[in-house]
């Protein structure tokens, strides 16, 4: 791997939070990358660390109590974690922008929408206020907001949920960033608007050639958008691969469990949804072996004692599971024969 084509390359991130109950080790040796022009999705259940991981790359987590213990976040080869505040500011918003989950709370309630757009543009570009305003209106038009001039003068709480998220997207694309981190961008929305907003986001960014890091707990949602998917569990990636790898050749028992748990239209309606029994481990407790071991149907002795190493299945597809370890050849064969 020479790093060519990689826009964001995050390696061995380790993040802790100091809480009253002690130290919470929420990100453990997590690595992923986003290539130029692709949509990379990070999927995981609540508390798996996906938001913390991506926000830590831009040092957006509160520090303290948060602490980045180690790792690198290489953006175009430069480590964001080593940058000083000024260098980092030049990246935030201009190179890498974030779309947060709930625009209602993520935007300032006492500032007009237009002003919040304009201030972003002015911060990063040498542009007159008048031109910035024209640009802001243009941005609102790009996210398909009718009558942008009217919306510029409104406050965020005056807009509907869908409109709010469009505004959030408009702010994110204001300076034509190279990467957008979309942190559960549709979770706060009605089901009917979800697809609309996601379609808008992805089509817009493909048009602009922007890479996307899409964070979600909804595996089904990413199916039609993501080029590659990373599945997170308890602060680390258990499986990473192309969309095709994850949906059709999933290797990790957790990924398979998630896929089975997705609601399906072809099953009888009275059949219970499949679930993964148990709950994720408490990040504040010391851990031994594989984090998923206690919930795993295929758990072996080795899983309880040693953490599984990263195993390459092919060039893009990697996983952390003892079942996939070359040394576990026999077990895998027998399992596949039985299946």
């Amino acid at each position, binding site marked *: 791997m020479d790093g060519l084509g990689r826009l964001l390359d995050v390696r061995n991130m380790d993040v802790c939070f100091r809480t009253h109950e002690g130290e919470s080790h929420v990100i453990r040796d997590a690595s992923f990358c986003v290539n130029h022009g692709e949509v990379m999705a990070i999927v995981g259940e609540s508390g798996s660390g996906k938001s913390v991981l991506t*926000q830590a790359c*831009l040092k*957006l987590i*509160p520090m303290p109590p948060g602490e980045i213990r180690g790792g690198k976040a290489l953006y175009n080869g430069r480590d964001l974690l080593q940058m000083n*505040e000024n260098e980092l*500011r*030049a*990246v*935030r*918003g*201009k190179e890498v*922008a*974030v779309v*947060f989950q*709930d625009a209602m*709370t*993520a*935007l*300032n*309630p*006492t*500032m007009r929408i237009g002003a919040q757009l304009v*201030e*972003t543009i002015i*911060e*990063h570009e040498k542009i007159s206020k008048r031109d910035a305003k024209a640009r802001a209106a243009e941005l609102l038009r790009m996210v398909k907001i009718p009558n942008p001039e009217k919306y510029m003068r409104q*406050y965020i*709480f*005056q807009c509907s949920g869908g409109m709010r998220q469009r505004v959030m997207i408009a*702010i994110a694309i204001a300076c034509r960033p190279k990467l957008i981190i979309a942190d559960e961008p549709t979770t706060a929305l009605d089901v009917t608007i979800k697809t609309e907003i996601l379609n808008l986001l992805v089509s817009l960014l493909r048009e602009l050639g922007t890479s996307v890091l899409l964070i979600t707990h909804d595996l089904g949602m990413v199916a039609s958008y993501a080029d590659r998917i990373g599945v997170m569990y308890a602060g680390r990636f258990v499986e990473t691969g192309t969309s095709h790898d994850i949906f059709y050749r999933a290797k990790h028992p957790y990924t398979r469990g998630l896929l089975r748990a997705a609601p399906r239209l072809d099953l009888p309606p009275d059949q219970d949804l499949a679930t993964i029994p148990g709950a994720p481990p408490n990040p504040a407790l010391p851990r031994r072996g594989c984090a998923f071991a206690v919930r795993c149907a295929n758990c072996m002795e080795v899983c309880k004692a040693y953490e599984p190493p990263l195993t390459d299945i092919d060039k893009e597809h990697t996983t952390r599971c003892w079942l996939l370890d070359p040394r576990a050849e026999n077990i895998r064969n027998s399992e596949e024969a039985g299946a």
Partner: protein
Amino acid sequence: MLKFTFKRMFSAAATVFVLITLTFFLLKMIPNGLFADPNISKEMRARLYELYGLDKPVWQQYLIYMKNLLRLDLGDSIAYPGRKITTMILDPATGNGLPMSMKLGIASLLFSVPTGIALGTVAGLNRGRFLDKLMIGISLVGVSVPSFVFATMSVTVFGNILGWLPTTGFSTPREMALPIFCLSLGTIATISRLMRTSLVELESADFIKTAKAKGLRRSKIVFRHQIRNALLPIVTVLGPITASLLTGTFVVEAIFNIKGLGGYYVESISNRDYGLVMGLTVIFGTFLVVCNLVVDIVYGLIDPRIRLKQ
């Protein structure tokens, strides 16, 4: 916004009306009527009653009082015969009375609110550091020590021992310094603590994180997003604070020998000077209601959520 303003103004007027009416009838209900002195003869008492219009039925007295009030006539004083209550309270000749109390209250307001906000901001933006801890300590003292203790202490220290500042009167800036300072301490403490808490709370607000994620410089995040929103809770307490500064001057006025309204409070009640009690109630009641009205309207102006969400 206009509708909102009118609604508030209407309810403010109604409040004042109810206040005046209640006070009027309450005073009439005090047993053991006026001029109960046994040295006053029956005829004399009857003449005095007639003079002050007390011989008429109570409802008629009430109507007369309200009619006079509309012409800004508060009636005559009983304890100081021949003096109009309006002139006693306003005292345009000497500038004592209400103008003096207002001067002290407003000066203290103008000093304490900006100071409190500034100190609270310094503390809130330096959370956990030395300045913050110092501020918390000082404001704890400010909140818990009553103003008469401060006032007597500062008279002793700055006036008598050090001899830096005069301890009576309120006309020259040097005379004004100590009273204003003593009256302001409590308010400074309250406002600075509120400002600090509200800044600290906003630190973890989602929109502050967004502002950071947009790459804004810290000064813009702090001034435009954090401080602006942190000021909203301050505005809500300004009404009661203004009221307490303008009515709570009694102790400070007494200690620094300032001829404001403070003296009349106690005097009017012990003298059974009904007209003066009524007058003070009307003045302060109206004042309070107007303060709260102004705060409500200002709050609506600066918080669009109130202005636009009806």
